[in-house]
């Protein structure tokens, strides 16, 4: 009973602010939709010969074919219908696109994490590599990914890589950076006394890395992975834009904007936000599992 009560209290405490924010956001959204769509509605939907009431205007702005800003319920309906009205292998089903984008995101995430780890180990291992690599790594992130993406696609395409690989590479390009930066800090986090202790045990470099530096860096790694997977999702979607890809959330955004189908753009956006949320939640779940296994308070 008490557990249930406290759970209810917690729901009230944690849930209420979220609910208030959600309602506020929806109200603002509707207000924005009315404001932005009014001109189009007057021009195209409402009768020109007879006078119309403001109720008619309000209804018209919320139910346009190609609104400037679709209303939440329009987006919701489109979103829902894409999920239930079409089979999973149809390009009209958003989950089909989610699968395509998630695949390149996850490949890019795995590759980016490995690359980030490798770079961090190299940087921590040698001062020369630290000086040689770090400027390039930082510079790589100042180049807009939108500019890099077509280049990567062309080069990889000429080498015979198509489909997932180029998209995964671009996702990796955004993923590795937070992992590198966090891991350099994490691998350097052991105190002098701890490294000296390993020294007195005559531990070799690998042992010091595996038994001290890597475990000590885990609390640094996971926040970077959460950032990294979200960045990887952006990379994967951006990579879908210049390829004229027919599948993926990025492609869905692109076709939506080709045809001025704003509702489709918005439901793809909502879906990509949900995918990003799901991916970071999954990483956070793994983090909790790992850190609990280490018995940390």
């Amino acid at each position, binding site marked *: 009973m008490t557990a249930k009560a406290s759970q209810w209290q917690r729901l009230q405490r944690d849930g209420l602010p979220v609910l208030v924010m959600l309602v506020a956001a929806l109200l603002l959204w509707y207000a924005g939709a009315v404001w932005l769509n009014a001109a189009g509605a007057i021009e195209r939907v409402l009768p020109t010969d007879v006078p119309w009431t403001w109720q008619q205007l309000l209804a018209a702005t919320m139910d346009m074919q190609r609104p400037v800003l679709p209303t939440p319920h329009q987006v919701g309906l489109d979103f829902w219908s894409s999920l239930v009205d079409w089979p999973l292998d149809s390009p009209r089903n958003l989950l089909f696109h989610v699968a395509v984008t998630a695949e390149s995101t996850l490949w890019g995430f795995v590759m980016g994490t490995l690359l980030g780890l490798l770079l961090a180990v190299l940087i921590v291992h040698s001062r020369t590599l630290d000086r040689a690599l770090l400027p390039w790594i930082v510079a790589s992130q100042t180049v807009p990914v939108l500019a890099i993406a077509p280049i990567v696609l062309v080069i990889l395409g000429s080498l015979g890589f198509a489909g997932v690989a180029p998209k995964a590479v671009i996702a990796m390009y955004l993923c590795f950076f937070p992992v590198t930066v966090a891991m350099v800090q994490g691998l350097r986090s052991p*105190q002098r*006394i*701890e490294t*000296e*202790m*390993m*020294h*007195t*045990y*005559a*531990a070799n470099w690998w*042992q010091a890395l595996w*038994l*001290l530096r890597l*475990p*000590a860096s*885990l609390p640094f790694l996971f926040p970077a992975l959460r950032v990294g997977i979200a960045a990887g999702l952006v990379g994967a979607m951006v990579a879908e834009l210049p390829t004229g890809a027919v599948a993926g959330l990025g492609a869905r955004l692109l076709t939506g904007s080709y045809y001025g189908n704003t509702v489709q753009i918005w439901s793809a956006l909502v879906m990509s936000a949900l995918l990003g949320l799901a991916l970071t939640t999954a990483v956070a779940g793994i983090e909790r599992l790992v850190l609990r296994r*280490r*018995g*940390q*308070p």
Partner: protein
Amino acid sequence: MNHPEDSPIISRLNPPAGGRLAVEIRQTSVVYQTADSPVHALENIDLNIHEGEFVSLIGPSGCGKTTLVRVIADLEQISAGLVLVNGVSPHEARLARAYGYVFQSPALFPWRTVLANVTLPLQIQGRTKADAKAIALEHLERVGLVGFDGKYPWQLSGGMQQRVSIARALSFEPRILMMDEPFGALDEITRDRLNEQLQQLWQRERRTVVFVTHSIAEAVYLSTKIVVMSPRPGRIVKVIESPLPDDRHLAMRDTSTFIQVAHEVREALADGHHD
């Protein structure tokens, strides 16, 4: 009596019970180059530590006692002189796992259980998991921590943590144990108890112990030999062979012999300051 002025030949001719030299230090200096002037952390140190001795290095801060033990442990490089540990250089001795080192703080890995912390050196030496576990459990028992093997370091008190770190240092049975103010951060009651346990441990196993402290009572209670040091430059002022019997208990601190040795140490410390 084993004064620093003793020549190596004489001390070799008259080895105290225990025999072989565990640590031999000849005319050793450590100089740090700083921006303005070189700092003489240690100057012309001569010291013999025989196997089975419990040697305390005592002195005010800056006297080089920690530097000296770090030199023996190959954590610090000497500028001049000769240091031999078990007849070889500190570097070779370290690679041969000749010593265990207990730091000022326990330095336990928070992600490892107590047991896994103690097995760490064994794991590095490539012992099998089952072997390492059996050895570690035995060493935890020796420091009085039966039943704590599954706990994490943060679940233990400071004194218990330091006992885990002693078990870890001893897990691979090094012949020499070096301790750098291991109980400095603990309260006096815990410290007394740990001193008693350490003394009993030494009596049972007769390992060579090099112990850094700034507590006179601790040094006199534990040591068979007390090395009094003084700062600027770091040097040895006096080496006192303890007349106390090996079998000791805390109540001994009220005996006249104990008080006399403590007095002698205090005098030597004062002398070092007046030079």
